[in-house]
């Protein structure tokens, strides 16, 4: 889906880590009762990923589920698939009290690759980014400098960051500044 007009159309920057705006990504907001087996089985069955633990990401073969709050999940899939999966989820959850919304266009997504990516995040978010405290698969909804955002590590050398679309440009410039050459902290 490289022709989808995202906030920055795939801008990138090379510093103490690589900063890249990701191409359009399918995102579906889900709200429901995690304690209800019907909700859990409908979601995990359709997404083909396990339920994530608190502040965690669960990655399946094709899609992932992000834990957003005690009653909110975010499903990641391809941009093209999102409306189809949204409809399927809506059908599957029709008999339950749940909310399904395709929000694939609402956010800007960034990836940090390699280098001091943990330190770049620790410059912007009040989060303990040490490997003991923040492992692959952990997720935080927090702030990055002055805007709300969420991030997680998809592997030791890859971090995913999402923020609202309207502040995508701010986020990119922020990450660029935090990743400026010569700014490694040497703490984490």
């Amino acid at each position, binding site marked *: 889906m490289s022709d*989808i*007009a*995202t906030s920055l159309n795939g801008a990138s920057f090379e510093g103490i880590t690589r900063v890249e705006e990701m191409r*359009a990504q399918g995102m579906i*907001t889900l*709200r*429901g009762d995690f304690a209800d087996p019907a909700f859990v089985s409908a979601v995990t069955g359709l997404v083909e990923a396990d339920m994530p633990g608190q502040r965690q990401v669960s990655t399946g073969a094709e899609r992932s589920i992000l834990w957003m709050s005690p*009653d909110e999940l975010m499903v990641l899939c391809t941009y093209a698939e999102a409306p189809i999966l949204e409809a399927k989820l809506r059908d599957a959850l029709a008999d339950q*009290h*749940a*909310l399904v*919304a*395709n*929000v*694939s*266009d*609402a*956010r800007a997504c960034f990836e940090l690759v390699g280098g001091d990516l943990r*330190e770049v995040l*620790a*410059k*912007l*978010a*009040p*989060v*303990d*980014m*040490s490997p003991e*405290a923040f492992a692959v698969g952990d997720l935080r909804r927090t702030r990055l*400098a*002055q*805007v709300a955002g969420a991030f997680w590590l998809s592997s030791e050398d890859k971090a995913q960051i999402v923020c*609202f*679309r*309207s*502040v*995508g*440009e*701010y986020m990119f*410039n*922020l990450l660029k*500044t*935090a990743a*400026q*050459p*010569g*700014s*490694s*902290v*040497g*703490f984490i």
Partner: protein
Amino acid sequence: MSTRLAKGGRLIDRSKTVKFSFNGKSFTGYQGDTLASALLANDQMLVGRSFKYHRPRGIVASGAEEPNALVNLGSGVTHEPNQRATTTELFEGLTATPQNVWPSLDFDIGAVNSYASRLLTAGFYYKMFMYPRAFWKHVYEPFIRQSAGLGKAPDAETRDPDTYEHFYAFVDVLVIGGGVAGLQAAKTAADSGAKVLLIEQTADWGGRSLVDGGSIDGKPAVDWIKDTLEALENMPNVTLRNRMMGAGVYDHGYALGYERLTDHAPKVAGPRHRLWRIRAKQIVTATGAIERPLSFAGNDIPGVMLAAAVRDYVVNHGVSIGDRTVVVTNNDDAYRTAIALNEAGLDVPVIVDAREFGGGALMEQAKALGIRVETGCGIAKVHGKKRVTSVDICKQAGEGAVLWSIPCEAVAMSGGWSPVVHLWSHCGGKLNWDDTQAFFRPDASRPPKGDDGEAMVRVAGSANGELGLNAGLQDATAVGQAAAAAAGFEVAAVAPQAAEEPETPIEPIWQMPQGAHYGLRLKSWLDFQNDVKVSDVQLAAQEGYESVEHTKRYTTLGMATDQGKLSNINGLATLSNALGEDIPQVGTTTFRPPYTPISMGAIAGEARGEIFQPIRKTPMHAWHEANGAHFEPVGHWRRPYAFVKSGESVKEAVHREVLATRNSLGLLDASTLGKIIVKGPDAGKFMDMMYTNMMSNLKIGKCRYGLMCTENGFLTDDGVVARIDEDTWLCHTTTGGADRIHAHIEEWLQTEWWDWKVYTANITEQLAQVAVVGPNARKLLEKLGGMDVSKEALPFMEWRDGELGGFPVRAYRISFSGELSYEIAVPANLGRAFWDKLLEAGAEWNVTPYGTECLHIMRAEKGFIMIGDETDGTVIPQDLGLNWAISKKKEDFLGKRAQQRSHMTDPKRWKLVGLETVDGSTLPDGAYAVAEGKNANGQRNTQGRVTSTYHSPTLNKGIAMGLVLNGPDRMGEVIEFAAVDGETMIGAKIVSPVFFDPDGEKQNV
């Protein structure tokens, strides 16, 4: 004169010379120098002028406590005032200028104040400048502004080229201070496995022991420091940072670390300063102690320095302050200076010890070196103007009769040491007065406490009042162990042993000599930077200032940029003597962060330039930028106020946009409007609580305008609600209200109606939304094709999903302009393409993108209210004639009860009306309608005010809305509004607020 010695200088590399300039003159120093040591090496004794009397000022100290040697550092874009020469590491090309000098450092006109110092006593400004009152603004203030102040503020037009950043760090134990105590505390804590961060404000590890020596565990202290540092460097759980100051300690183990990365090497890439925002389970402050000056006449003359600083410069930088240095002291430590000077081959003509029987082992050592020691004596007066020439020695017990006059170039003074308790005190740690050692020290039983009610800060070494090397090591070991244990780590620790000679106790000396007459006290400085003398504090006490906090403000003692690091204890001891009270009764002033000033850049961090503040941008923002948008801030968004074409004023652009939209076709980027989904079996019930009108009975496919009030009844937001399906509603909010209203409804949902089955989602950013407005709006959409947008298929106040021009859309038939109007929502990523398509297809109708001002005018012509114009947090819907939107059937809704209160139902509440000026002009925004008579304050009575006012291009006259007393009952009456000058009156007729198309014929086609 001060000079560089042929040998010595632990820190300097004599093979590497460094060029720098001060006061326009070029100098040379060595790598390893501070600006202060390099200036002294070049005999630059005079470095600035004092704040009030413009007295010559020289370097007093060798570290962060320095009050005098403040310089303007750099020039142009890198200019920075009030930089401390003693903590500025020398680098090639450094440029510094002295501060508070006019016209020059050597000849300063302001120094005439010094001759008037008998008049310029404490509180002089308060007393003098009271009368005549008119003189303040035109005579006194300009004069004071010229003569007072320290560094120059950077030029407003320059931009700092450096970058700064923040960093969030989480540790078990934070140790502040890299002297022997800090190293030992960090080592002990780290041995437990705890994650330790050890920070040191200077470039050097080891603190005073590097200069003062001693032996630890049988080896020289310097070697022990080296070994311990190496051991710490090899521990994976330890991070060491030098050039990083512990700036402040705050609640819950939060501390600020101020790291200066490139101040010493400006050409290195990366940020200049980094502000560490540290969360520590435990904080250990090992911040050492600061030497106190002695109060004798002329103690501010350049060449009079702290004793430890004099030996620092000799040992660290191979710099001598003068060939002959008189040492004056009330404790044993200053003898080390005499010994160090003697070892460097310099002369110490006399050690003046105020104690009757002098000191202990160190005194004997000095005597053995052949140095003359006079006990029970003090300095009566120092002679010299811009540098010391001689001192008069007297009996400490007397009034200052001169026993001997001794020529010398330098005076090394020591009034004892004060533990650096700042960080301990920042967050509430309490102090005790230690009578034996004559200082305030932390009281471990009254520590700053964490969330568990237990101590979160501990103090080690000299900072804890353990001045001896061995005592400090024992203390640091115990404190390191306790901090680790409190952070959840166990360690068995063995303290190193240091050889220590017992010292003879200090004798507190607050005035030298003790019976000094007024003339001497008038020249005995307490605060060197702010020119506060012993006589000033005594005067304040005489005038009734008993509280140390009041005295501080009255005399300005300790209020300079050094925050009284040298002066506070001497000042409050002087005050307590004057009041006849004990020092603990008088107490200290409050210690507040930061420990020494930190740069504004570090505080701002990354927030500058293009990321100073987030600016929210819609998917169409780039088009707006490229097409003449004159932006206005709405929340964090920048919305086009108008699209200005070349040769057009903003006002003309607005005028054009209104007419083009009314007559043909306009487009508005409405993407910023809030969009919140409310869904669930109880959603209808919930919507009825949130809005004043009925929303549960809205039919699927239909829209309804709704009002939201706070529980106090005031109107807080409005917008169109659409019923999406059986249990889903979509709420539109104002642009600024999206996040606020989402939070508002979630709060009620989570706290009051937590058991209702409702979920919400803020999908504002998922959709780009365009208002297609004007008589040709339908034609444009029909041209795009895809869905039926006819009056029958999509009637007014309804919505449909469909496709337009190949775009998946949700089309709403709603109007905020009174025109035939659609709002079309598309996925945000398609927003720009859809906008472009509308422009292209609309060309035949002269499609005109319009901005927020055009939107405002069109809504005002229709009498539609605007949140923030007609409302200000004190307005209820009833004031605005919106009773039709307040359900009478509903049992309850937010604000209902409040709106029934007597003040809300008071018929005298001002009500909304339209206003039409008699002469057709436009009323000033916010203007008040005047009424007869004056109120109790002598102000003209009022009977209404303007809430919105515009020139209507459609009607070609001024139109306004306003709240007026009994307004709706006074239709046709002319009332007077006061213009901005308060004199000119503008007559306006009260009319209906709907100025244009009152029957809605234009929108309903």
